């Protein structure tokens, strides 16, 4: 699709719309989930970025924040939840355990959630501060706005 009027301005509009209303799926696993909840409360308010509505069901959410360590027993379930989310969808891997297995390099953990789902933004930290999660969300919003209507590469 060439860069004509339709894809640029409309793309900006759609990108602006999608970027500012990213609804995360409630995927709290371990310690990072407590910091994710702390991000949603009044102290560090995620509602300022339009992501306050933590949807319980994957059908209504377009961002999956994998917050916590993914065990081998949980991996197929995480993949199922990711599959059941409608496009366009993004993934933030929150914390060292989700990104690389973190402190636990052993048989029980999936060493990095990008082995089963494509990840957009990684957040270091164990657990990362709530402000780190907001920073990751802002990075993701820039990417969504830049993406516009184009399918994700």
């Amino acid at each position: 699709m060439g860069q004509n009027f339709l894809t640029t301005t409309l793309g900006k509009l759609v990108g602006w719309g999608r970027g500012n209303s990213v609804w995360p799926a409630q995927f709290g696993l371990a310690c990072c989930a407590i910091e994710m909840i702390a991000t949603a409360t009044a102290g560090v308010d995620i509602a300022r970025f339009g992501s306050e509505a933590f949807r319980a069901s994957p059908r209504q959410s377009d961002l999956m924040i994998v917050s916590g360590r993914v065990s081998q027993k949980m991996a197929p379930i995480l993949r199922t939840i990711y599959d059941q989310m409608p496009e366009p969808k993004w993934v933030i891997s929150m914390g060292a355990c989700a990104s690389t297995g973190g402190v636990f390099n052993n048989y029980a953990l999936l060493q990095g959630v990008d082995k089963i789902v494509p990840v957009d933004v990684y957040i270091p930290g164990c657990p990362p501060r709530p402000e780190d999660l907001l920073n990751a969300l802002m990075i993701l919003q820039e990417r969504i706005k830049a993406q516009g209507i184009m399918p994700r590469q």
Partner: protein
Amino acid sequence: MLESYVPILIFVLIVLGLVGALVTLSFVLGPSKLYKRKLAPYESGIIPDTPAFRRLSVRFYLTAMLFIIFDVEAVFFYPWAVLLRQLKWFGLIEMLVFIGILVIALAHIWRKGGLDWE
């Protein structure tokens, strides 16, 4: 005579236009890849193998019917409430008769035990 209805017409047009635009735009612009795993029923992450439809006990149906009866009854209050001034005593008596009949029905249901859950 029809002029007084024009505002409603405009209102309906705006609503239909807005809703239509939203639905078609999101249908056109949103990517949609449907595949088996996505359409599988969501049951907290587990693909369920037990059937989801089971025969439910009759209590639920009974409660639903009771709700509908008394809800529809409530709908009749609105026009009556709006025109209460004009209808004067006649409207009041008429509505009391209407309510009386339904109160008798409610008492019957209560006595027969249709309201308690067990």
